[in-house]
């Protein structure tokens, strides 16, 4: 019943801006096992962790400019766990020699009323998908190997259809802004995964 510390420092705006450094690639289904084997060897020694998530992408259309995108993700394997809301900013246009895609990232854990709340705020769901796969860690580096599936009936995550015959491989790091050595570490890790998978910087704008 002790009083929790009362902070007089404002939380808004002064928080460190976290950046996500990202490299992406893919492997065909038949090569998955060799990739998982290599990752188990390279990454931190821990029980292989698998996940099954349902992600909904919400858009808020403003009067001008691009719509604001928010990604709400919940675990299908742990239904009582909180929702995870993520905002990803525009990729930083900087050094061409920088090896990873860098963008501002804000992660918020939220209660289960999140979808209703986002609708009340004016966000509308644009699309949803199910991601199932494995997650590995090496220090601050995170490797996620996932199979993305399309949800056929909105809201029904049991009825899904794989989007492709491949697995998406993502190497990411969350770090405060300004730490440029991170992309070097990512590049050297990515080298060790060749020729199984080629992880590269993929600019989302080029895909649109």
């Amino acid at each position, binding site marked *: 019943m002790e009083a929790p510390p009362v902070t007089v420092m404002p939380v808004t705006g002064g928080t460190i801006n976290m950046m996500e450094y990202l490299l992406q690639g893919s492997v065909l289904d038949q090569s998955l096992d060799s990739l998982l084997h290599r990752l188990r060897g390279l990454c931190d020694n821990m029980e292989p962790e698998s996940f099954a998530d349902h992600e909904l992408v919400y858009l808020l259309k403003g009067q001008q*400019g691009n719509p604001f995108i928010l990604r709400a993700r919940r675990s299908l394997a742990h239904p009582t766990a909180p929702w995870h809301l993520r905002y990803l900013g525009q990729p930083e246009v900087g050094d061409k020699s920088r090896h990873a895609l860098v963008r501002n990232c804000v992660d918020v*854990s939220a209660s289960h009323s999140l979808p209703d709340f986002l609708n009340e705020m004016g966000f509308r769901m644009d699309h949803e998908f199910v991601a199932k796969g494995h997650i590995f860690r090496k220090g601050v580096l995170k490797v996620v190997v996932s199979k993305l599936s399309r949800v056929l009936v909105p809201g029904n995550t049991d009825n899904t259809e794989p989007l492709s015959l491949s697995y998406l491989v993502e190497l990411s790091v969350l770090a405060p802004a300004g730490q440029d050595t991170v992309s070097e570490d990512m590049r050297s890790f990515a080298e060790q995964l060749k020729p199984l998978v080629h992880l590269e910087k993929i600019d989302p704008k080029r895909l649109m």
Partner: protein
Amino acid sequence: MGVTCVCQVPVAEGKSVQQTVDQLHKKLEQLGGVKQGSFFVDCETYHTTGNASGQPSKLLYVMHNSETPLSCLALYEGGPYLTADANFDVLMVKLKSHFQNAKGHKVESRGARYRYCDFLVKLGTVTMSSSARGISVEVEYCACVVPGDCWNLMKEFMQSFLGSNAPEIPSVFTSKPEGLFAPADCMDTMSQYLELFSKVRKQQVLPGSSVR
């Protein structure tokens, strides 16, 4: 988190806000309450910019409670509620082109936190734009989570130091299903504070209110 009741106490006749709060402190200490630090609850208001449909935009309230320092609570009056972590404030900063913070509308209640056996009592001065606008009293009975089971006890306790200012059962509890196990959660407390803050916003500025 036990059953919590938040109410507003009127300023005593001929006294200032600070004097009334001091009187309440004395009464609690006489009862046997032990001061245990301080607390604050604040509420910021956001409104949507540029509403295409021309309807009056709903106000979004983002509240913080020192009792749950890592959380951020977002509420629409009567509407859906969201409990999130502290990064929600950072997200609201990113959303500033869609949601504008009405800075002049920020209301907060700050004061002392007392513990008396299983009760936690928080006496706060409600301020808006640095002027004291009222007094809030929050009483939490930590031993119980079902409002129906302990309301009578809480009311009796509140009468012992608030006298005739003790409130009736808050509407957030009467709307819960009768007879079923309906535990109270932090949202019930925050929606009571929101109601209190809305009343305070609409009130006139009190004469002789202390400027911080």
